């Protein structure tokens, strides 16, 4: 039995499936969280999670994806998830779905929110008008699930088992990208549109079944905060202050934690050293491993793990409260300067956690050109949590100029985005729905932090250990010293010693490991600043490259890599000229 969950963006489709099955679909408080069809099996049942859409006969790739899924309708049921607090707009999609004639249940979710807004819905009347079951639930407080489970357990009898042939024709005609006979690309000439009558019917229906209007009602404190944040000047200032506060807090915490953590791990690392020294036959091999393994195991815990957890917590909170999409409105002028619409703030911010899911999140951008610009900026400029941890440690060790590093990265972000967007001129438009501010469900938020930090054990730790062994071996064998010959060259162009240049070159393999080489050198603050900035603005790590190839293709990756190398070199030379 297959059930497909369809609904407007951000109504809680993914959260509902998670609650029903215990799955771990990504849930976040902004429209466009899910961008692909996902399915979850539970017993005999198969639940399909879909990207949120405003209309079945709407433009855009997501609507087409959902239409395609509905076309293959044998044995299919529809669970139409509706935001109870926004009935009128949601009902347009509901009516479109019901016209298909598939067995359908209308689930009014977020009943808790509707109640707090003083909205009461006559569900019986709605059910009679729509001629289908209507069930009110709340994923947040768990109410209404019994009836929903009963419906899902019942074998399908009502309704036709497949889509009405006329509707199939309509669906397939409108499937795929919207374009007219004259154009080869998506155009505005022959657009798929919602029926005017459907819109009217949704309006009358909503007026008919909503019993109490949110009349004179006390605003909750959350709504007051929301009103404040949605003010252009005060709101933007508050959001920017928050971002700055979180950033400084992250840097301070990472530096504060480093000492105690490494002290706590010292005994363990000592034991390891002794063990390896005793177990392996003496020689160069022994020396390298007894030094590299304990070090390679401790460094990730002292500087990378804390950064990953702290950034993970911050990003999850920004996501789940609904603050994150507010940045997309406040900073729309900035994103427009780099040629992308406001939503781009979301993948860019996610990139501070890990850039692999951030590249996936670029799918909430409206076109391929914007996705390419943001993927480039993510790859070259945005530092992920692991890089941030290492950078913070290196900056602290050498007293490097943190503001120079941050400002340079910002300038490169703006210039690179500006340049790329002029190369790909197009009409961009920005329409985005702001979700209500919510108090996060702390348990789910914490689960997200845990899954965000999972990469630490599967990726960061093993890779770092391996790289550290290789590095130590290179140092012991004196290979690094052979780079001394380049000293004149690197000092002249970039103002950094040859060994630091080696660190820059290592970024080609794994970006966040490169600064570790710096930790073993004696650098002046100026040299450290230049080296760390060159490393920060260079190439993406391997998982990100793989993701770019998968989502956008190898050609795009090659352009991004070329841009990364060029920008790193330009930044090094410019800083060498500018810095006193």
């Amino acid at each position, binding site marked *: 039995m297959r059930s497909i969950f369809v609904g407007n963006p951000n109504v809680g489709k993914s959260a509902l499936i998670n609650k029903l099955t215990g799955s771990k679909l990504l849930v976040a408080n902004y429209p466009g969280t899910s961008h692909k069809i996902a399915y979850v099996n539970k017993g005999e049942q198969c639940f399909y999670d879909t990207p949120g859409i*405003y209309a079945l006969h709407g433009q855009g790739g997501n609507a087409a994806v959902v239409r395609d899924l509905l076309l293959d309708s044998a044995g299919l049921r529809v669970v139409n998830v509706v935001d109870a607090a926004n009935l*009128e707009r949601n009902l347009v999609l509901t009516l479109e779905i019901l016209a298909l004639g598939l067995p359908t249940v209308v689930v009014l979710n977020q009943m808790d929110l509707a109640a707090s807004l003083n909205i009461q819905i006559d569900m019986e009347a709605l059910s009679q008008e729509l001629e289908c079951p209507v069930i009110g639930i709340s994923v947040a407080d768990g109410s209404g699930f019994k009836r929903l489970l009963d419906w899902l357990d019942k074998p399908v009898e009502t309704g036709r088992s497949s889509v009405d042939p006329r509707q199939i024709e309509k669906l397939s005609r409108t499937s795929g990208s919207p374009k007219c006979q004259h154009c080869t690309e998506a155009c*505005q000439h022959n657009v798929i549109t919602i029926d005017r009558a459907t819109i009217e019917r949704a309006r009358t229906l909503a007026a008919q079944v909503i019993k109490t209007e949110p009349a004179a009602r006390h605003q909750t404190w959350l709504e007051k905060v929301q009103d404040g944040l949605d003010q252009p000047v005060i709101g933007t200032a508050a959001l920017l202050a928050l971002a700055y506060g979180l950033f400084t807090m992250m840097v301070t915490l990472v530096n504060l934690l480093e000492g105690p953590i490494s002290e706590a791990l010292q005994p363990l690392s000592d034991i390891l050293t002794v063990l390896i020294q005793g177990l392996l036959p003496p020689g160069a091999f022994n020396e390298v491993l007894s030094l590299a393994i304990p070090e390679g195991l401790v460094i990730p815990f002292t500087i990378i793990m804390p950064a990953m957890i702290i950034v993970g917590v911050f990003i999850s909170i920004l996501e789940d409260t609904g603050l994150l999409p507010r940045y997309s*409105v406040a900073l*729309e002028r900035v994103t427009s300067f780099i040629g992308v619409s*406001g939503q781009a703030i979301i993948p860019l911010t996610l990139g501070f956690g890990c850039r692999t899911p951030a590249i996936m999140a670029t799918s909430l951008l409206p076109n391929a050109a914007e996705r390419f610009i943001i993927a480039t900026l993510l790859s070259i400029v945005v530092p992920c949590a692991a890089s941030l941890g290492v950078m913070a440690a290196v900056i602290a060790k050498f007293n490097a100029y943190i503001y120079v590093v941050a400002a340079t990265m910002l300038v490169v972000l703006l210039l690179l985005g500006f340049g790329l967007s002029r190369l790909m001129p197009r*009409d961009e*438009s920005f*329409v*985005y729905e702001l979700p209500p501010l919510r108090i996060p469900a702390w348990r789910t938020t914490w689960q997200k932090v845990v899954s965000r930090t999972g990469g630490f054990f599967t990726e960061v730790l093993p890779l770092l250990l391996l790289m550290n062994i290789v590095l130590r071996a290179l140092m012991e064998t004196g290979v690094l010293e052979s780079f001394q010959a380049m000293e004149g060259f690197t000092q002249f162009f970039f103002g950094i010693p040859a060994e630091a240049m080696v660190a820059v070159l290592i970024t080609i393999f794994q970006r966040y490991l490169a600064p570790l080489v710096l930790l073993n050198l004696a650098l002046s603050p100026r040299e450290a600043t230049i080296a760390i900035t060159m490393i920060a603005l260079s190439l993406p790590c391997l998982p990100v490259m793989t993701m770019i190839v998968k989502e956008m293709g190898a050609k795009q990756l090659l352009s991004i890599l070329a841009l990364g190398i060029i920008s790193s070199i330009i930044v090094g030379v410019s800083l060498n000229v500018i810095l006193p």
Partner: protein
Amino acid sequence: MKTIKNLKTGDKARITSIDTEVAGSQQLVEMGLTPGSEIQLLAKYPLRGPLLVKLGNNRIAVDYKLAQALVVNEMNDSPARDVLDS
């Protein structure tokens, strides 16, 4: 012809039509900004920034160019405003 750009922050209005000549206007209709619906202008961001519109319990941000597509009729049913106006 009055568009939401001509409204003041806090003004309520009814959408009378959507200018389909403006690129991207179809998206507005899909998001519920249809002729006949009531909206309130919540905020206008400076430097030709986006406009924030309240529709039912939704808040929708629309960029400056696209806002041109939302043709409205101002509603003067709020008594507070009448006092201010006179």
